[in-house]
């Protein structure tokens, strides 16, 4: 541990700023600010490190920083927004690699450590290496370089024994006074293989969760390395990231309705054969929170009420939600299909009851062209009136009926209780479209939840 007071104090400040930055990033209002703060802290930490007493190889160091930073900066800058997740994966992997690298140097240099530190050294090395190779696999999958989820025969056994071997060799190496080059190499080879083997069988749809998990791992590895080299800034930043990463992983898995254990272990047990690879043409769910965020950060939302809204008596809630969105600057309109509900004017009666002003209510002809410009079409308990089958399928009983073009909106959110069909009893092609997500629940409750989340987004 360097004893330079100035450097240490700087590290302390950096740690504090990291925590504040993360906190800021957890709220939409301050998120931008958060990353900028953290960025300054990082630059500061890097610069300050050069003042560490007794630092050698400064030239090489600068070169590595310039090269590594430059490559990453450039690639991060040019990548398409849609390819972001794999970039996060690969950068995360690099962090893990760095942590593993630090361990490797310590091992190669044969610095003596006490028991706890040795254990942490080995753990950090393993976790870092796993994060590295795992992230690389994740990157490859998302980038489309590796399209299938590959399961080894006897995957379970392979995993088990590989894990055992890695830890065994790792601890041996760490506790050894002067570990041999081969042992060290073997150790890292094993750890890297473990990462590959673990991530390989997981499907692309679950990748974000896996990346988040690996990210938390890297955090832990960094934290452990901090203990090993006695740098509290690393400890704090690493562990904070580790803990928040674990929580985040859980939250993400919950938001995607995929319990973590299914993601990690399903491929192992082979229970869920689909493996999470997004099957085209299934109905996909979303949470009330996501629905709220989609709408709250959209420019224009068109609400399509149907008979289900009437059944649920949700009109007051719907209008409340609409008002909240409007207060947030979102443009909201109601699109009433001529035959929505079960009597002429059914929706009018309800919306009037809720107090929706007439100038927000549009009929099919007035609004149908606007769907293409809408960020979200929120379909509440409507079914037949937004069924694109009416446009295409001559054999359908609703063929030829004009429908609301909800399917042309960027995102479609459908609120309904379950798989119930509409009045005409036919399947709705809209629900299977790529841009459509289901928010299950009786409209009254579902919209109630959305309202809560919309409110949570206001600060």
């Amino acid at each position, binding site marked *: 541990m360097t004893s330079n007071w100035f450097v240490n104090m700087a590290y302390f400040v950096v740690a504090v700023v990291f925590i504040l930055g993360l906190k800021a990033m957890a709220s939409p209002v301050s998120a931008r600010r958060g990353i900028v703060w953290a960025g300054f802290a990082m630059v500061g930490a890097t610069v300050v490190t050069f003042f560490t007493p007794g630092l050698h190889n400064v030239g090489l160091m600068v070169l590595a920083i310039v090269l590594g930073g430059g490559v990453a900066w450039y690639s991060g800058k040019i990548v398409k927004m849609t390819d972001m997740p794999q970039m996060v994966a690969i950068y995360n992997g690099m962090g893990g690699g760095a942590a593993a690298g630090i361990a490797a140097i310590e091992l190669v240099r044969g610095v003596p450590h006490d028991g706890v530190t040795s254990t942490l050294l080995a753990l950090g090395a393993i976790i870092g290496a796993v994060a590295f190779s795992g992230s690389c696999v994740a990157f490859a999958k998302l980038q489309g370089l590796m399209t299938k989820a590959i399961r080894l025969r006897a995957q379970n056994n392979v995993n088990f024994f590989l894990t055992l071997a890695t830890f065994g060799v790792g601890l041996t190496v760490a506790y050894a006074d002067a570990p041999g080059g081969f042992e060290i190499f073997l150790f890292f080879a094993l750890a890297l293989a473990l990462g590959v083997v673990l991530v390989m069988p997981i499907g692309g749809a679950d990748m974000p969760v896996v990346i988040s998990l690996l990210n938390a791992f890297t955090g832990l590895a960094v934290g452990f390395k901090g203990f090993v080299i006695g740098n509290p800034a690393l400890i704090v930043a690493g562990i904070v990231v580790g803990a928040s990463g674990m929580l985040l992983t859980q939250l993400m898995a919950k938001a995607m309705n995929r319990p973590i254990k299914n993601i990690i272990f399903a491929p192992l047990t082979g229970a869920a054969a689909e493996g999470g690879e997004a099957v085209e043409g299934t109905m996909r769910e979303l949470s009330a929170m996501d629905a709220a965020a989609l709408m709250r950060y959209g420019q224009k939302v068109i609400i399509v009420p149907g008979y289900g809204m009437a059944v649920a008596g949700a009109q007051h809630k719907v209008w409340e939600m609409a008002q909240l969105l409007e207060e947030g600057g979102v443009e909201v309109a109601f699109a009433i299909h*001529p035959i*929505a509900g079960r009597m002429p*004017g059914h929706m*009018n*009666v309800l919306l*009037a009851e809720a*107090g929706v002003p*007439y100038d927000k209510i549009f009929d099919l002809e007035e609004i149908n062209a606007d769907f293409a410009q809408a960020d979200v079409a929120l379909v509440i308990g409507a079914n037949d009136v937004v069924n694109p089958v009416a446009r295409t399928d001559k054999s359908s009983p609703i063929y030829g009926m004009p429908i609301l073009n909800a399917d042309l909106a960027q995102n479609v959110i459908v609120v309904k209780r379950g798989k119930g069909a509409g009045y005409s009893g036919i399947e709705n092609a809209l629900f299977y479209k790529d841009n459509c997500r289901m928010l299950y629940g009786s409209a009254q409750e579902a919209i109630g939840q959305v309202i809560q989340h919309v409110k949570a987004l206001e600060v």
Partner: protein
Amino acid sequence: MGERRLCVVPDVVRKYRELGAQLLMQSGAGVSAHLGDDMFADVRFAASAGEVFAAADVVLCVQPPRTESIAAMKPGSVLLGLLQPWSSEERVRLFMERGITAFAMELLPRISRAQSMDILSSQGAVAGYECALIAADHSPKFFPMLTYAAGTIRPAKVLVIGAGVAGLQAIATARRIGAMVEAYDVRPETREQVESLGAKFIDTGVAAAGSGGYARELTDEEKAKQAERLARAVAQCDALITTAALPGRPAPRIIGADMIARMKPGAVVVDMAADTGGNVEGTVAGDKVWINDVLVIGPTHIPSRMPVHASEMLAKNLFNFISPFIRDGALALDWEDEVISGSCLTHAGEIRHPGVKQALGL
């Protein structure tokens, strides 16, 4: 359709009885309000109205009694009801001559405490509601917005003139049915009240707050300004309901023939003030007339269209007025009470209300 209200209802009869009062009623008087004699317990029935007038110490009535009836009353007896104090000098003279203590509920002071006795208010509410229904029923259009399989019907525009008790109720009712409502009144404080019901207030730039919650008459210049702005609103509306009134005077003429001429074909006008001369040029009291393609309705006896509830409200108002002074079946008026003194028309052979005295030149 004439007067169908009754000045007591069974519930109120019970309360009078509890105070020890004896009740005498003309047999069959409640039939038009769906109140058969059998529904009244503890009431003596008289075969004729005359019998009632001759026997009673306190006479409750809805409309002012006819001359013969007044003549039949006991001297010194008390008469209570809507006596139309401004309308007939002769009747007032008769009250004075017979020494009748007459309380005209139209004269009731408009103070908070007296609101529970205020027949003008309660019957105004009934009238406002009814007028909105009449308008909706006669309109050749839907009031509410309605999207049906082949298109959308935009909500009707209803314009209410005069936002007093009746006007506000008409606004609320038309809004309930689904119309878009605009309203206008000369008293500036009505703006907020109109808006509190979700309607739009039309600003003409003319303000005419009078005293006691009533409006004052407008100057000619003000009338012209008002008319200008109103004419535009009138031309756009599908139904027009007028409720403007001035206490003790003929209703102000607000809608001229020229405004009616500019209305849409099929528009409906309900002139609640038809009884007192009408706010609309061409109204015929008690009848419907077509002016061009506009239907102008001048309903009279409007609260009588809803005799059950109108009677109930009226009966309670009268009871609230007189009951504090009934003790053990005897009447003991407290002339210190501002409500009693304020609504007294004649007492002990004198006219007691300065405004009426002056207006009738007595």
